[in-house]
């Protein structure tokens, strides 16, 4: 019987109760063409080292929990196939723009706070009675928000964003893209409220349009474009507010 092919998985570990500094652990994992990095991590957890910590849930690129740097690039580990690796080993590291709690698990409070600040829900001036039915949209209205609706909050865009790396207060790509989705939603009346937040000091202005957020997005959302559109919408809204009002 032919021996099982294996691949080396190198994981950046951080166990604060054991060592102050992060360190790397290497594991030989059975390899098959259909395996993704998350499968390898789960193999390690189940068979080699139960202390390895990482987040995951859906295994199908929907929940956005399993984000990590795979060979130095921000990716969902559930969507990164082992066969895509060019070398004979794969390096898995936690997202570096967030504080590491343990191994590949990072503190997400910074992102959640941003998400909460932009009120990612439908804001209505007046709610209609449930008996009146749903708030309907035409296919054209839906198309306006379809792309940004795909965001799964995986934070890979924040990992790719050099501005967020330097300034954690920056609203960042995902929160901006989700805001854009709400601002453009035909059912929503909160555009002004959101644009005020997005055009404030820590809003969208610091985006330098590098566009890496859009490159790394696993759901093909284009946060860089959403930010530029928000800058234009917010800017025009501010200029209008500075003009004398008609009596």
């Amino acid at each position, binding site marked *: 019987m032919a021996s099982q092919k294996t691949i080396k998985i190198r994981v950046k570990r951080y166990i604060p109760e054991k060592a102050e500094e992060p360190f790397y652990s290497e594991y030989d994992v059975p390899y098959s063409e259909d395996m993704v990095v998350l499968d390898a991590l789960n193999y390690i957890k189940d068979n080699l080292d139960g202390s390895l910590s990482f987040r995951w849930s859906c295994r199908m690129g929907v929940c956005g929990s399993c984000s990590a740097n795979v060979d130095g690039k921000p990716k969902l580990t559930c969507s990164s196939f082992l066969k895509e690796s060019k070398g004979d080993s794969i390096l898995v590291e936690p997202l570096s723009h967030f504080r590491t709690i343990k191994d590949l698990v990072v503190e997400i409070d910074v992102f959640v706070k941003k998400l909460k600040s932009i009120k990612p829900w439908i804001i209505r001036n007046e709610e209609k009675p449930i008996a009146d039915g749903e708030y309907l949209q035409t296919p054209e209205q839906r198309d306006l928000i379809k792309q940004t609706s795909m965001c799964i909050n995986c934070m890979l865009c924040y990992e790719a964003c050099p501005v967020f790396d330097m300034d954690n207060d920056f609203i960042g790509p995902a929160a901006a893209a989700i805001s854009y989705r709400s601002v453009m939603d035909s059912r929503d009346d909160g555009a002004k409220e959101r644009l005020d937040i997005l*055009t404030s000091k820590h809003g969208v*202005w610091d985006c330098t349009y590098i566009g890496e957020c859009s490159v790394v997005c696993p759901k093909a959302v284009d946060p860089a474009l959403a930010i530029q559109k928000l800058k234009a919408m917010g800017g*025009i809204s501010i200029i209008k507010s500075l003009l004398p009002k008609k009596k």
Partner: protein
Amino acid sequence: MAEPDKLEAVLWLTFTLGGFIAALFIPVIIVINNLAPGIGALSQEIVSYDSMLARLGPLARIFFLIVVVASIYHGMHRFKFVLFDIGLLKFKTPIYVLTYAIIVISAMIAIYSLILIPNP
């Protein structure tokens, strides 16, 4: 309640306007001044300094002033972002002062030059 940053909005909108003006007019100026005479589509005489000077009325001066200042503004705003991208965001205030000072000085030089150029 978050307050909109009105200054940033004005700076960014001016940047986009500058980019629009630069992208629209600079290629036209390059074609008229350089490419067209080079390929024989315009005679060298028409684009000579004296000939252009003869056409440099007040409107043309304002046009060139707008094109020059808008292009420099656009370029410096972008340059500011390049400096942030290479890791200098912590020097935000000095970078703002430096880039906008260059814009103001360039605008003053442009105005002075256009006033200095003699009328036809």
